[in-house]
């Protein structure tokens, strides 16, 4: 097992997204108030997906993660017409 860390941020504002859910190598973790997460996974090439209320799901495909990998995920706010 290896330990990877990461951060989930708003694509436009750069602000951290707290309480985002990150799916990585069969594990599910949540971000803290600073948008950060930590997970212990098998070292492998895998897809990382993030979901958060008010944002469009984000995905990073085919990256190889090993001990100490740092994963930055940017999410686009879910935008609606304003009427």
């Amino acid at each position: 097992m290896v330990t990877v860390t990461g951060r989930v941020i708003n694509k436009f504002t750069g602000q951290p997204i707290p309480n985002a859910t990150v799916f990585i190598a069969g594990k599910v973790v949540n971000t803290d108030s600073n948008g950060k997460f930590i997970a212990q996974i098998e070292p492998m090439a895998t897809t990382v997906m993030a979901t958060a209320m008010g944002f469009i799901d984000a995905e990073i495909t085919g990256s190889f993660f090993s001990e100490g990998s740092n994963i930055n995920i940017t999410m686009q706010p879910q935008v609606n017409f304003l009427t």
Partner: protein
Amino acid sequence: MTDLFEVKQKVEDSLLKMKGVVGVGLASMSPERLTIYVENQETAKKIPLVLLGTETRTIITRVPKFQIERNKKTRPALPGISIGHKSTTAGTFGFVVLDKNTKQRLILTNNHVAANFNRAALEDHIYQPGPFDGGTEDDTIGILLKYREVTSDNNLIDGAVVRPDNDSDIFDEILGIGKVSGAEEARPEMTLRKSGRTSGITGGTVLDINATIAIDGAPFGRTVFRDQIVTTAMAFPGDSGSVSVSENNRAVGLISAGSDTITIHNKIRNVARLLNVDIIGDIDIDMPQAAFPTIPVAAAIGLGLLVM
């Protein structure tokens, strides 16, 4: 003794023609005096101490403004207040533009406010205020003149223009912002302001000037807009159609969509070009084209994108 009321009647029209004089009244004080309301000290100094044998006093004040409720019927209607197609809820009257061919003054707003996401018919009645704010047929301000279709991809603008039934029913100055003259390109970190039906005057900072962004809420599902300005959040539901302006009161964007954290603005010169309208006070220059193919107005009509 000179009758104070008579004196007031004799001098008030002349006084009101003086720059900086905003009102004339009768002071209930002893001795009786004529009260002249002025905008500043400079004007106060120009007022004689005695007029037709009556002493005067000056009071410095701001020009009184009419209190306008943004979600109520107002004539003439001002940019910044509620408007909407009979089948929509309510959006915002953005500002006044000129038809490029006829030079007629038109109301600019969004397609989704005045054309109900392409579902309206040309010449449908547009209400001020919008239906959500109680607008009915009796509140018709004009007709839908033309709009740019919103499709599932490759949108640049969400725009429509309304021809008022009476030219005197619309006012050029944006409520709380004033007269807008000309247009300006957005720049990163630029500050923009808008006047909207829901949140009134708010400001935001430009985060992106060439964003491609997915927007939800159209009847046909998610739609993609390109070449958009993104700012920090400065608009809420009902503010659609507001025009964002620079610190110099030049038009920059047409607000269409947003979230809790960001607001999306169509570039105002894209709006003008694709709706074939002029922005009052804008210099007629050749604008750099967007980084992806665009089509001229005649071709857009042929393809059914510009509906007029």
